């Protein structure tokens, strides 16, 4: 092999190595770190990742918000009008968190069917509904008690 060819070969090999390494890392990171979105109906049907964080979204049920005295712990119910999930959260709720409004929470299901949220998100616009929540409500419509 001429020196130029050899050099080129080394270059190509290096690039190929880099690309395959990057792809491998990418796939691992991706597999471990994506988060699924589930609606209350799906959670009720046991369709959720166990021992792993996922996003639960829906409406905060009217009158469901409870504060545990002398702590920052709250419990509320997230509903898509077909199924309910009780969420427990300790910390400060976002400004636009309100009963009867859309919400997305991130956390895991505990063994006693409580969703332990690490994070609660409500959007920064009155008129804005998180698209996942809108879709979840839409999907739950046929079985919704309101429509019976």
């Amino acid at each position, binding site marked *: 092999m001429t020196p130029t060819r050899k050099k080129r070969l080394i270059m190509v090999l290096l690039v190929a190595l880099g690309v395959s390494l990057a792809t491998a890392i990418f796939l691992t990171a991706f597999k471990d770190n994506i988060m699924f979105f589930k609606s209350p109906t799906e959670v009720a049907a046991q369709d959720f990742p166990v021992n792993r964080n996922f996003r639960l979204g829906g409406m905060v049920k009217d009158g469901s918000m409870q504060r545990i005295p002398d702590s920052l712990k709250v419990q509320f119910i997230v509903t898509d009008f077909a199924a309910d999930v009780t969420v427990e959260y300790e*910390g400060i709720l976002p400004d636009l968190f309100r009963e009867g409004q859309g919400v997305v929470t991130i956390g895991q299901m505990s063994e006693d069917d409580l969703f332990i949220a690490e994070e609660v998100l409500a959007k920064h616009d009155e008129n804005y509904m998180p698209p996942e929540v809108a879709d979840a409500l839409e999907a739950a419509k046929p079985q919704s008690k309101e429509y019976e």
Partner: protein
Amino acid sequence: MLASVGQFLLILSLVTSAALMLLPMVGYFKNNQALMQTGRPLSYLLFVLVLTTFLILVSLFMLQDFSVTYVWQNSSLALPLRYRITATWGAHEGSVLMWVAVQALWIAAVSRYSRSLTLSQISRVLSVLGIIATGFLAFVLFASNPFEITNPAPLDGRDLNPLLQDFGMIIHPPLLYFGYVGLSVAFALAVAALIGGQIDEKWIRWSRRWTNLAWAFLTVGIILGSWWAYYELGWGGWWFWDPVENASFLPWLAGTALIHVQAVSERKNAFRGWTVMLAIIAFSLCVLGTFLVRSGSITSVHSFAADPFRGLFILVLLAIYTGGALTLYALRVNQLRSRDAINLESRETLMLANSVIFITATFTILLGTLFPMIFDYFNMKISVGEPYFGLMFFLLMIPMAVLLPLGAQLKWHRDQMHTAIKALLPHFLVASVLTIACYVGFGGLNLRATAGVFGGFWIASATLWQLKQTPGQLNAGLVGMTTAHMGVAVFLFAMSMTEHKDIEKDVLLKPGQTTQVAGYDFLFNGVQRVAIENYQAQQGTIVVSKNGEEIVTLHPQKRFYPKQQMPMTEADIRAGVLKDIYVSLGEQINDQGAWSVRIYLKPFIRWMWFGGLMMMAGAVIALFSRRSRRMERQQADQVMQDRLGLT
């Protein structure tokens, strides 16, 4: 009335930019001097027209003309004048108009400062810029017209989103747009070169300074956005890997790769195709970013309202610009083939490695941003957040930090790798010692923080030493590079500390109660009601002290904007050299006046932004490089001589 004038000027702008798109290009292909010469006057005219249009929209806001739909939707009688002005770019229609106004300014600047390009070159560049302007002006006119009229006009407006009623809103979007749109110049140059079928050093040298300037604006725009999010959103975070943030970060990464590759391709006939490709990628990402922000296809804190038609329109523009440029590239790439051989052991190789790292980072972040959309198509709802982006970015920044001093150490053309590595060994030791000192001093660091701190010291130590080693007079190019690289070092160190040594605590406080966080005492003195300008607020008083000595009294607010029926948290921050003390109010918990309070301690967070500012400063300093200015002058003389027929 004024709105109709604005509407008319908007149409006139579109016609002018269409002329700018067509006439010089036709002139180029027909070799018609007169047509080619229309490029410069047309771009000045376009600038005046678009600027006037934009100022009319600003005036409509100042005059509170609620017959204009866009004005009443984003302003109200109670809104203070300064926010009425900035409300102009507070929502979709106005911000796209500002996009075009900024682009028109860049076009005019290109016309003015392009003496070193020949007529045939500049006419192609301006024409390509005209294509971009025409697309976006059509978008303003047909899909997001800010001059639409509501009849009858409402008596009062809906008010500006309270989050946007802030100083950050005044400066962050314009600067970010300057950077975003500025990359269109590099793009136009690349496409114009492809049309002509050749690209030489002159082109790249000329383009490089524009790219530097755009990159500097982009950098400062992103930093301001981060700073604004930090104090305004009330969660104390400085970067959320939100799709809209990524939208501004992606062109920045590609732009970083581009300015480094340009440094090679302006010196020798190498990496020409790659330079052109990176310029196309960088600007395409700007347009893609505009699509992500404006279409609402992706869940984000920034997506206030979604409109599929607008999304589709931008997607079509993206397809035209990128598709067109890539097609041209495919047709002409053979003519761009670089002739100079690259030595493996040289700075050129490391510059290539730099661009590969940054482009890989660009694509991993792009994939993470787009994956939710792709999965959505298959009816799976996922989100990709900090865990993914944080890990990927960390892994990709390792080779960047390791190789940076090596790249600066190796000489152009030909050098010896092992000599360079040997020269850098002492700095490796210095960095190790300092990292261990930090590790002990700050009571332990996790893996990522240790790596980041080490990277910071390693780059700083080597970079300063290299500056000292430089023989002879310092030139602006070197000073610029050193400043920017020191910025990287400062950023790496500070970011690692802020991310991994911060303290966040949510507590419940009754009036008169004290809580202790990391040696600081926070005394809560209750909440009072205050009424300011167009909002009411519940204002807390928190006295921060250490060892009985009072440091500062903070007044975080929970604001309520009656017009929008919207509450908002306004944190109060004591900015410090070593750490920020950050306090924000949650909500009232019981009727005895107890509140939930969020207390953060953020070490070195100011240094992180300062590091970013240093990168920006480096890019600006490099503009004054005497070498590039001399060469530019020579080129200009050459062009003039050619024109006068002296050669």
